[in-house]
């Protein structure tokens, strides 16, 4: 018990030291380190907010094994841009519940931010945003992908999303007939 208590005290001290810092260090799957504003990270990512509150942030770089360095760089970049661009209150309220809250169109800078990404980088960023619980970033990236889908056939969509066609020819024909109206061009 005595030993445990000592360790607890040490942890307590480290937490305090950490709380004083206004950035957190994140480590990508390939070992690169990124600094991000603690306030922005906590505000934009439910997962990072939980880690900060729970004290599981590592000073030497919190391991995010699921996220590659390119995606993490984009995440950090987004957080920093966000911190500088918009008053926070509006954004927090817009991202509380993404299924029912009215969807807010991407801001101009958010549009530019996703427009410059390559196809792969965009999809990696969606995964990273999903993993980190960053609902606003997920909204913005998903909105971009949805725009890319307009006017595409099911075949083209499968290619974009790397999805295997698991229907038989007959089933596909059946679906086409059932939903014939949706396949007409107006």
């Amino acid at each position, binding site marked *: 018990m005595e030993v445990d208590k000592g360790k607890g005290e040490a942890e307590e001290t480290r937490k305090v030291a950490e709380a004083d810092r206004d950035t957190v260090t994140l480590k990508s799957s390939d070992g690169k380190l990124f600094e991000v504003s603690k306030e922005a990270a906590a505000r934009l990512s439910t997962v990072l907010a939980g880690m900060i509150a729970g004290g599981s942030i590592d000073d030497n770089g919190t391991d995010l094994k699921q996220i590659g360095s390119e995606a993490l760089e984009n995440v950090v970049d987004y957080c920093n841009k966000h911190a500088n661009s918009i008053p926070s209150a509006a954004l927090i309220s817009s991202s509380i519940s993404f299924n029912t809250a009215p969807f807010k169109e991407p801001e101009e800078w958010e549009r530019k931010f996703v427009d410059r990404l390559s196809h792969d980088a965009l999809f990696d960023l969606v995964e990273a945003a*999903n993993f980190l619980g960053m609902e606003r970033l997920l909204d913005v990236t*998903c909105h971009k992908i949805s725009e890319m889908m*307009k006017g595409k056939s099911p075949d083209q*969509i*499968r290619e974009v*999303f790397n999805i295997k*066609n*698991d229907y038989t020819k007959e089933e596909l024909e059946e679906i086409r007939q059932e*939903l014939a109206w*949706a396949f007409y061009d107006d």
Partner: protein
Amino acid sequence: MPSLPTSSNIGALPLDAVYEILLCLPAKLLCRLRAVCRPWRALLSDPQFALAHAARHPEPLIALAVAPYAGNKGDGVIVDIMDLSGQIVKRVRRVQRNDRVISMELDLAFVKNVNNDSYKFLNLATGVAHHLPDGFAEEHVAFGVNRDSDSVFILGQLPNTGEYKVLKLIHHVSNNLSSQLAEVCTLNSSSHSGWRRMEKPVDQITSSTRLVIDGIVYLLRVDTVLSITFNARVTEKDMIITFDLNTEAWGPCIQGPSINFSIDPVEMLDNNGIPIIKQFSLANLNGSLCVVHGPAPYMDFWILTDFDKGVWVKQYSMQFEQYGCPVHPLLVLGDGRVLIHKIDNRFLQIYDPSTKNFINSVDWTHYSPISMYAGNLLSLDR
């Protein structure tokens, strides 16, 4: 979220992200995307997804039936569903040759086949047809009722169960005496019960205007309408007669708004000095009962704000350059502007109460009738 494993990936992306992406897309494209793969079809057929999609895309949709004279283009389209910019989001094709749309309610079109005189309700999203039972309630058959030619069919949906019911008003003549008889049936696509006899209405009802809100049918007395439209006079009787589709009984009568007529008789004449015929009709305005009346001297839109106390509020009062044609309000938009349908203008119009101006919306040439579409285009009947 739908009841699917959320951790799994479909192709390149996690399901959560796919769900979010698909929510952004228009309904028509989504229906096409059911052909991508099984997991996508499962997600896109989920009623929960349909609800979330409707919440994300609250844009009002209008159902416009192709006018019979314009329906000979060979493509079989009988209804187009459009958004307020006039973009067609869905084209609905007929089930049988000689199908003709009589009216549209909720998410259904009431279709008469002019070849065999049969009636059906067609679900505009799924294409499923609900056929009306043939014949009449037994008691009415015994009474000598055998013709539907002047019958009026009024569709409503029960708020609790979502069940559709139809009130039929039969115009029956025997021994030179005409009377109105009432019957109800429940609509069901697989099996249907027959018509059930109801009590007669308390008074003669006009068939020209009626509506249903939350399973309550609202109808107008013939003599009320006649005295207002032709004599510019209000009778003492309660104007509105109700029928409850849930309990299948006539409900209380409702006193209408306290309407006035212009004291200046000249104002009520048209350019040729002929008195302008008044309008007195019912409308469903965003789920509230609305009485449209005018010109008196303006076209007034009264909303019933308190059913129990019978409180009516004159919500809008519109001035038109020319009266003489009926005005039908379709919808109040989020900013308080009103979408209206006036027969002598080929565009639906949006009225702005702050500027008192009208702007043109959808061109409805070659379409009739027109109504708001209250369904979900993603829904599937299976």
